[in-house]
């Protein structure tokens, strides 16, 4: 099955194209190597022949036909000229001197030296391949000189064999590499496919395995995995919302229903009815506001990243929050202290940041205990803007700190004080949207919550991304 997929895959087609392109390149290269080697060897051999032609001509000029016979005689005794052939014949091709038996039929001598030709063996002769030239001497005799080029041919043949083997090996290797690359890709795609199928069948728990090779495939797998993480997160938050709605809204609704039923069944006075209706409306309003808080948090969590963000001053927002909460703090006997000496620019949504900071300050005032001093600090931290809200209340035990960011989570000791348990999860949603980290720490005594925003350069990057995105 994998093989048929391999054959179908586009990667294999690509591999074939590569093999084709590379092999034509390699063949061209090998052909050139052969051609240049062969022509070099021939050239060397031909040069020697040309020199020998001149020696013959010289000998003839000095002493005529006898000079040539003498030269041929000398050459036959010379080891250096062992692979040379000579033939001197009468004008009617009768042998006069030399080490070649008969005149080759393919050779037609002319008054001047003929160009060099390659002569294939004739049974009557040496049986060797010759490179030869011939001429008619002024007295009518025919002269042939030549060289056996057997070994040159043998060398070239060897080169051809080597090149052919090399080319064959190259083709096999290239094909193997193409197929294995293609199979690897297909295997990765198969893995991704298999995981998708599993996810469709069983749920979002599955992840695509990484090979740790850090290549593009790992990149694709990683991105798909983080996409799955994000989807799972969103699904989880949807599930949480419905759980919370069921849990936290059903209780008061049941209570209200009971009250209305009681009102229906009992005969009450007008004023009693009035107060019953009033109470019901107040409670209903509470439920509605809680409901819209849940929706608001979900909306922030699912919101289009950074849409509607601007450059704003965190310090200014903190000043306005402190100003808004100053009367409330005074009423509770708490003191609000603001530490914000310089402008602290962030890229964000003013409404949301105001809301988040309001929640933190409101919590700090409410839970800060007696003689409470709430400190709100806004500063440019080393790695980005930081907002700190600290109080001197009971704080949050270390093992509870993770839970307080969840919706409707309320600490045991504050369960009976007013509040929806949604404040910190709103803060968490807003922080998350702004790429900020929440740190919940001990103020010894009290609670200290820090929002650490990403550095301005990163925000600037996000801003440029936003500028690139099409406006809604």
């Amino acid at each position: 099955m994998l093989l048929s997929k391999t054959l179908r895959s586009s990667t294999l087609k690509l591999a074939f194209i590569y093999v084709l392109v590379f092999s034509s390149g390699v063949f061209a290269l090998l052909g050139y190597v052969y051609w240049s080697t062969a022509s070099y060897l021939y050239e060397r051999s031909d040069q020697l022949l040309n020199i020998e032609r001149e020696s013959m001509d010289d000998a003839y000029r000095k002493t005529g036909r006898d000079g040539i016979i003498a030269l041929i005689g000398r050459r036959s005794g010379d080891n250096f000229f062992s692979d040379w052939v000579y033939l001197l014949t009468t004008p009617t091709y009768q042998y006069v001197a030399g080490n070649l038996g008969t005149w080759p039929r393919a050779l037609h001598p002319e008054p001047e030296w003929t160009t060099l030709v390659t002569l294939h063996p004739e049974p009557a002769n040496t049986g060797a391949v010759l490179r030869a030239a011939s001429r008619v001497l002024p007295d009518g005799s025919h002269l042939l000189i030549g060289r056996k080029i057997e070994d040159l041919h043998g060398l070239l043949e060897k080169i051809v064999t080597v090149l052919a083997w090399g080319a064959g090996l190259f083709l096999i290797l290239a094909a193997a590499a193409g197929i294995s690359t293609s199979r690897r890709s297909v295997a990765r795609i198969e893995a991704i496919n298999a995981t998708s199928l599993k996810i469709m069948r069983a749920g979002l728990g599955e992840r695509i395995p990484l090979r740790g090779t850090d290549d593009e495939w790992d990149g694709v797998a990683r991105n798909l995995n983080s996409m799955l993480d994000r989807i799972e997160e969103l699904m989880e938050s949807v599930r949480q919302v419905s759980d919370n709605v069921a849990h936290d809204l059903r209780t008061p609704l049941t209570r209200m229903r009971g009250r209305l039923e009681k009102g229906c069944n009992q005969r009450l006075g007008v004023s009693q009815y009035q107060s019953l209706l009033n109470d019901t409306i107040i409670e209903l309003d509470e439920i509605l506001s809680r409901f819209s808080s849940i929706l608001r948090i979900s909306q922030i969590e699912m919101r289009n990243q950074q849409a509607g963000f601007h450059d704003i001053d965190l310090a200014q927002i903190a000043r306005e929050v402190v100003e808004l909460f100053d009367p409330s703090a005074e009423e509770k006997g708490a003191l609000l202290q603001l530490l914000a000496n310089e402008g602290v620019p962030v890229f964000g949504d003013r409404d949301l940041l105001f809301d988040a900071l309001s929640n933190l300050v409101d919590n700090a005032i409410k839970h800060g205990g007696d003689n409470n001093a709430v400190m709100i600090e806004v500063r440019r931290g080393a790695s980005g803007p930081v907002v700190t809200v600290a109080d001197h209340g009971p704080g949050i035990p270390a093992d509870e700190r993770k839970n307080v960011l969840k919706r409707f989570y309320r600490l045991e000791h504050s369960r009976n004080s007013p509040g929806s348990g949604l404040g910190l999860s709103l803060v968490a949603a807003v922080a998350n949207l702004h790429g900020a980290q929440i740190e919940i720490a001990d103020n010894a005594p009290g609670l200290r919550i820090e929002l650490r925003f990403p550095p301005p350069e990163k925000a600037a990057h996000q801003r440029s991304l936003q500028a690139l995105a099409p406006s809604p």
Partner: protein
Amino acid sequence: MVGARRILVIEDDAETADQLVDCLQTSGFSVDLAADGEDGLERARSADYVVMTVDRMLPGIDGIEVIRRLRDEGVMTPALILSALGEIDDRVRGLRAGGDDYLVKPFASREMLARVDALARRSATVVKETILRVGDLEIDLLMRIVRRRGREIDLLPREFQLLEYLVRNVGQVVSRAMLLQHVWDLHFDPSTNVIDVYVGRVRRKIDSGQAYPLIHTVRGVGFRLRAPE
């Protein structure tokens, strides 16, 4: 203010429409009802309304589209958008299309009335006074000075803005969300009672030791600044 102040209600849900009409008529408006966007467009073009309320989601032409088309045609009747959709992005979209105010369903009828009143007043009074007077209270918008019975009262800038908004809407109920929107330029519902406490502080500065109180709390809705008859 005198005479029939006509309001156009564009709302497709019959029961909600009934409640709206009932509530508006009780407060002295004369109300026309349109059950879909087409009808709403028709009516808004042909008659002179002080305010219209527009449901966000309507059969046929969408509420935002209705407002956009009216604005394109030059019909500037103030529009209060009523929507069951979420507030964050949708509010912006609604206001961008030319809506003047935005209210998320479900809402208290008095909150709706307060906003309609504010829009109706806005279309009626565009007076450029520099000194506003209510009873023995006098606020000088240029000098940023507040006096009661001639005695100057010290207010913080934000407190001054809040008082100015109450005075500009004298006699009208102003909700907490409206205050947050117009005084702080914030568009969300504070879940706590900060606004009450804040108004409380302004009230102490304005009303304590005076012959009669000016700032009144309207239970379940918000506040109203009013001099005795």
